[in-house]
């Protein structure tokens, strides 16, 4: 009898774990699938496969060697003067075609831009202008299944010019009926019903091979006005704005929270109501006036510092978000939970409220400050609407989320180029996700602090 009960308890635990696992797949699945697909050459392929060639270690080794053969490093690759890049491709020739004699493929180095959108605005030299293909020749033949022949072709690409280029794209075209088997490096695309195998670059190096879409995001987006690397600039902007907001919020929210929790002053209740109200009202209600306030430099005050307007400036973005009511709320809740005795003894000793706050209360507030830090950073990093209103031009001024949202048009203008889009999204999500994994406790505390509104 007790056996049955124990059995059932085990089974119940198993049931719960299965349920939890199912939900994990539901919540994590889309994100993980997006991360995986951001490595693919075509994230919109049908059917979606889960094993892109970018994840096979054979290709990593090949990419490293080819990167070195191209005259670059094994990690980043290049196609440099004097390079000789050997390459082999194997095809299966069916029996009825093999009887007529084995034909050689056509190997070409095309003038190809990396992709749609910003990737199509290719400036600078093409590998096609300085590459010479030697071959192809038949390297080996082996009997394949049912009378077919496995033919391995070998060719070399030589650099005959003076300039180093970053990519060496190659197309190999075979007669109809020849079936691709393998190559030194897996091809990125197969075109024309299998007759053309196409490589983005055959001298990639490991990182540009595995993270090709990521190198595109970082390498293709340049500002039209300043020529700076846009994606890096945006990341820097976001970091700067988020860090500044965290610092101002930490200082001002702890001060205001302490005053609300511990000090008596006229107008306390009114302030409290307005504060709650401000947490509820959507920012789309107040943004019209806020936009004008920044446009006129906060009642003209910014002119004293020589700024006629605060639009399109991080100063404006930071000043308009010095401290949020929810952070003040978290701090207030925390200070109310502290025992009063410490502060009272300090007061009896004649310490001013400022001293008490600095010396006694703040050192105790570490958990709440941690929660505020994490939640503020996350909020500032992810914020989209207000920066979209404030930062409109030039593109160098965008924060990462506003910049990322322009990618949909940039890469989606002519048929979607999903690779860089997904890669950009993954990069944008990473900082906050890493923070979350490391400081999970603070996140949860912050949510439960702010959630228990009386």
């Amino acid at each position, binding site marked *: 009898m007790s056996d049955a009960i124990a059995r059932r308890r085990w089974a119940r635990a198993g049931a*719960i774990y299965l349920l939890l696992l199912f939900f994990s797949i539901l919540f994590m699945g889309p994100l993980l699938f997006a991360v995986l697909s951001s490595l693919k050459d075509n994230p919109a392929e049908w059917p979606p496969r889960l094993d892109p060639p970018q994840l096979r270690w054979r290709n990593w080794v090949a990419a490293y060697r080819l990167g070195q053969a191209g005259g670059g490093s094994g990690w980043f690759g290049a196609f440099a003067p004097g390079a000789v890049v050997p390459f082999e491709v194997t095809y299966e020739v069916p029996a009825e075609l093999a009887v007529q004699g084995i034909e050689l493929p056509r190997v070409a180095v095309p003038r190809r831009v990396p992709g749609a959108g910003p990737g199509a605005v290719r400036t600078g030299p093409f590998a096609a202008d300085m590459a010479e293909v030697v071959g192809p020749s038949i390297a080996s033949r082996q009997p394949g299944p049912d009378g077919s022949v496995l033919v391995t072709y070998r060719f070399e690409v030589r650099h005959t010019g003076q300039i180093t280029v970053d990519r060496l794209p190659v197309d190999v075209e075979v007669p109809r009926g020849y079936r691709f088997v393998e190559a030194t490096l897996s091809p990125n695309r197969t075109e024309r019903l299998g007759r053309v195998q196409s490589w983005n670059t055959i001298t990639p190096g490991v990182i540009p091979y595995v993270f090709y879409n990521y190198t595109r995001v970082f390498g293709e987006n340049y500002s039209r006005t300043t020529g700076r690397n846009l994606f890096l600039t945006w990341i820097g902007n976001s970091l700067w704005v988020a860090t500044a907001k965290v610092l101002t919020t930490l200082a001002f929210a702890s001060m205001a929270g302490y005053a609300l929790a511990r000090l008596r002053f006229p107008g306390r209740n009114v302030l409290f109501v307005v504060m709650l109200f401000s947490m509820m009202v959507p920012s789309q209600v107040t943004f019209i006036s*806020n936009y004008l306030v920044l446009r006129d430099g906060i009642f003209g005050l910014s002119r004293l510092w020589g700024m006629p307007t605060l639009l399109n400036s991080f100063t404006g973005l930071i000043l308009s978000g010095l401290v949020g009511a929810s952070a003040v709320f978290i701090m207030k809740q925390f200070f109310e939970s502290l025992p009063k005795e410490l502060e009272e003894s300090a007061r009896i000793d004649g310490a001013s409220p400022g001293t008490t706050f600095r010396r006694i209360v703040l050192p105790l507030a570490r958990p709440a400050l941690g929660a505020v830090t994490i939640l503020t950073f996350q909020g500032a990093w992810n914020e989209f609407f207000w920066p979209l209103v404030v930062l409109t031009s030039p593109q160098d001024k965008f924060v990462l989320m506003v910049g990322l949202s322009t990618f949909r048009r940039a890469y989606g203008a002519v048929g979607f180029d999903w690779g860089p889009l997904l890669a950009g999204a993954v990069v944008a999500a990473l900082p906050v996700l890493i923070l979350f994994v490391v400081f999970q406790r603070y996140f949860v505390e912050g949510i439960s602090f702010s959630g228990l509104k009386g």
Partner: protein
Amino acid sequence: MKEGRTPGLRRPMLSERVQEAVAAYLFLAPFLFSLVVFFAYAFARTLYFSFTQYDLFSAPTWVGLRNYVALLTEPRFLTALQNSITFAVVVTAAQTVFALMLALALNQKLRGITFFRAAYYMPSVASSVVITLIFIWLYQRAGAINYLLTVALVYRRVLVAWVVGTVVLQSALVLYERGRGRPASPLEPSLLVTAMLLAGAASAALWVAGVVTPVEGVQPVAIPWLNTRRRWPGGPVSAPIPLEAIMLLNTWTTAPTFMLLYLAGLQEIPRELYEAASVDGASAWQQFRHITLPQLRHVTFLVVTLGLIGTLQMFDQVAVIGDQAPLESVITLAYYVYSNVFPGGAVPRVGQAAAAAMTLALLTLVVVLIQRKVVER
């Protein structure tokens, strides 16, 4: 203002009061600046703009209630209002139910629970822009969601076999257990898992044996999730399909946040209640119905209120989706306000936008007032 450190010395009351108030205002100064300039003044000004005609450049001219009247006859505003309310109600209901389910599943003393909590929480931590971009990709005609539906269609016979097998086996197991004199509810989880696994093995065996076959010649599902004006399910209660697509993704991202609130609530329910109920022979369902739900009433009100407030301001998804979907199918009040202030090339209609913004604020306020009334009772 330093005073001697003599405990017990009575300082004059008034000066102490004043001192404390001054200190408080000094402490509050930066926050007050933010709150007054960027909230109170801004709110008042939006209210003022809603009674004026204004284009951001020339001075506003007073027109009284004309903007509000004009809104009532503007199809686009009415569409936005309808979309906003539908969206808020549906998503709030869905995420509340979903959050409660998740919380009940996670409210266990099991190893590795922190891992699961982190896993569930990921979508709500990531930014809305990132999530929306990823979902635009999943929602493509040749995207992963349509692919999964296609796979389900191809293997539908196997799936049906599995479901039927599970039901049959579960009934058999429950009857067997009861026959042995052990209490077992129809949805006893341990039995259910056994039934599911056995049914899974059985349907796999049938599939391998060729009794149950995948369906041949299934056309790939090509539902246009975003680029369509169609509504679903049709009839009086329906919403545009693109809006429903956003509903799905929003429920998916926000349910975990509310799950945390529910978890905190569940942990505060006294154990004795359940123990007493068990002694009285209450079933698991009865315990949930008569203890858990009533005890969680306050959390539920909070979750519903926060949910409505949050969903009423949905903007980011519409802005990121942009021309992937027809504007009428996804426009919300928040986006309506934005697009009237910055209409891109046309003259800004700030008066109309402000009136729409006040409507949005009013909706939010009504939600909050209802919650206050209910909680006070």
